[in-house]
């Protein structure tokens, strides 16, 4: 089933086209990767979907319903949760309280939210750090809190914006494991990533953006082999290396 459908989404900022007629479909239980060079319009596209920056033209459908330009909190209530590239953990609150805020999306009772949050903390491996102040933890943990918080809202579609950016290669491995665990739980994941080693092994399909427009779409192999993509983003050498590994 088509969970998310983008139909010719365009977003312009004072004449500059950040997204040009981007059409993407994300099906249920898929992991779809979104890659592209810096400034390709990946985060802008996420913002068009989540409602924080409504598209200039084009439509966004979620479960067949037109959600174009819907407010972010309403989009979340419909079942789409996102994380932010630049972490936005709630400083001054504990890790547990951060995740509770997400869980309060499903319940009016902080007590129930607390129980749900503890489950999510267990799942994401943050349980031992639940009482730490969220402003004081490491970047890896902050990214994990963002993810846990989004998961706690019980979304149908999880949109992850560069969860691995700024992480040490060792830490990336853990992040990949976590994303796979999330997929096993039946979530659909739409993920922006800069680090190719993260995206290639876990994605079912990859969409490539360049200068705001979609230039390629396909399996990781197809995308890595695509000359346009190599030229725009990966570089000739990475494409060779990747096909060699496979």
């Amino acid at each position: 089933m088509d969970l998310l459908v983008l139909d010719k989404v365009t977003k312009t900022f004072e004449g500059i086209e950040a997204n040009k007629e981007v059409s993407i479909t994300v099906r249920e239980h898929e992991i779809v990767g979104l890659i592209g060079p810096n400034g390709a319009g990946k985060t802008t596209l996420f913002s068009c979907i989540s409602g924080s920056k409504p598209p200039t033209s084009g439509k966004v459908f979620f479960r067949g319903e037109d959600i174009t330009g819907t407010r972010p909190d309403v989009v979340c209530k419909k079942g789409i949760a996102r994380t932010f590239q630049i972490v936005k953990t709630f400083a001054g609150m504990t890790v547990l309280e951060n995740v509770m805020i997400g869980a309060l999306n499903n319940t009016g009772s902080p007590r129930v939210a607390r129980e749900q949050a503890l489950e999510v903390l267990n799942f994401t491996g943050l349980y031992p750090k639940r009482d730490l102040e969220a402003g004081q933890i490491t970047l890896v943990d902050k990214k994990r809190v963002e993810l846990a918080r989004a998961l706690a809202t019980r979304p149908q579609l999880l949109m992850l914006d560069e969860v691995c950016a700024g992480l040490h290669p060792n830490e990336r491995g853990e992040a990949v494991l976590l994303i796979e665990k999330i997929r096993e739980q039946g979530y659909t994941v739409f993920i922006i990533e800069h680090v190719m080693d993260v995206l290639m092994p876990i994605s079912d399909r990859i969409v490539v953006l360049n200068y705001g427009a979609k230039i390629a779409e396909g399996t990781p192999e197809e995308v890595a082999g695509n000359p346009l993509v190599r030229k725009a983003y990966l570089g000739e050498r990475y494409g060779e290396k990747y096909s060699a590994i496979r």
Partner: protein
Amino acid sequence: MPQTDSTVRTRPISLPRLLKGKNLGVVLAILFFAAYPLVITSPFYVQIIIRVFVYAIAAQAWNIIGGYAGQVSLCQAVFFGMGAFTSAYLMVHYDIIPWIGLIAGAILSMVLAVIIGFPTFRLVGRYFAIATMGLGEIAQIIVLNTSLLGGAVGIWLPVLPDSFKYMQFHKSKLPYYYIAFVIAIATYAAVAWLEKSKIGYYLRAIKADQQAAESLGIDSRKYKLIAFMISAAITGIIGGFYANYVLVVDPFSVLPRSFSSMLLLMSVIGGVGTLWGPLYGAAIVMPLTELTRGFLGAGGRGLDVMIYAILIIIIILFEPQGIQGVIKRVKVRLAR
């Protein structure tokens, strides 16, 4: 540092437990304030604590919107004035008893909060503060020029024989003291509950990061409006009480900008976004004002403001969490 055990606690309530730790402080504070006017009978000192209550309540109301939700409102005087004028006007023109006047004032303050909040909550951070500050000024000017409300003279309430019904007591200040005391307890109990409720969590999330809060399903404008309405209602009630306590309401005494900033000052000194901060702030600032005026008279005018300035500088430099932060530090030290 781990603070609380994460398992859900549902222990039965028992007297010894009620008197432990945090609760002990609350019980002692209630006993202290309940006994205070019985021991210290000088009207001057009783009057100071009545003013502490009035400000502790209004500062707590500010704390809901300014502290927990992080929206620095500088038009709290408008709600205070709304409460005061509503109660006085209804009493003088329609002979409606003050108790109903207080409720009417609270409701009208809430309506006003929606009217002010709906457009201004589009503004973020300091722009919201500036907008509300401007609205406060406009409100004062409007009332000054409204003959219905007595213009600059204001409304003088009739002096009636002592009665609980008309909230007038001339033989002793004690009834006023205890009425304010009860309103204070109710306010702090309500905020203690609010802090632990879904609304409390959501307000803190909006303060910490509005965009992240919205992405997690929080309708930020709705929750800010709720906080503003609760804040306005409490301020309106205590404004109504104040009118019946001093028996005169004029735009200079109940609608000044200094009132709004005083509430902010008290919360900052006591600890912004904490339950007890506004009380600590009011308990320090109010007596300071009264005592410098009482002992130095007109010559001491301005001295209190200078002391506040020094306090604010010290707090900004050393303890942004105010007195609440200092207490926390001491507790951590003692626990070691």
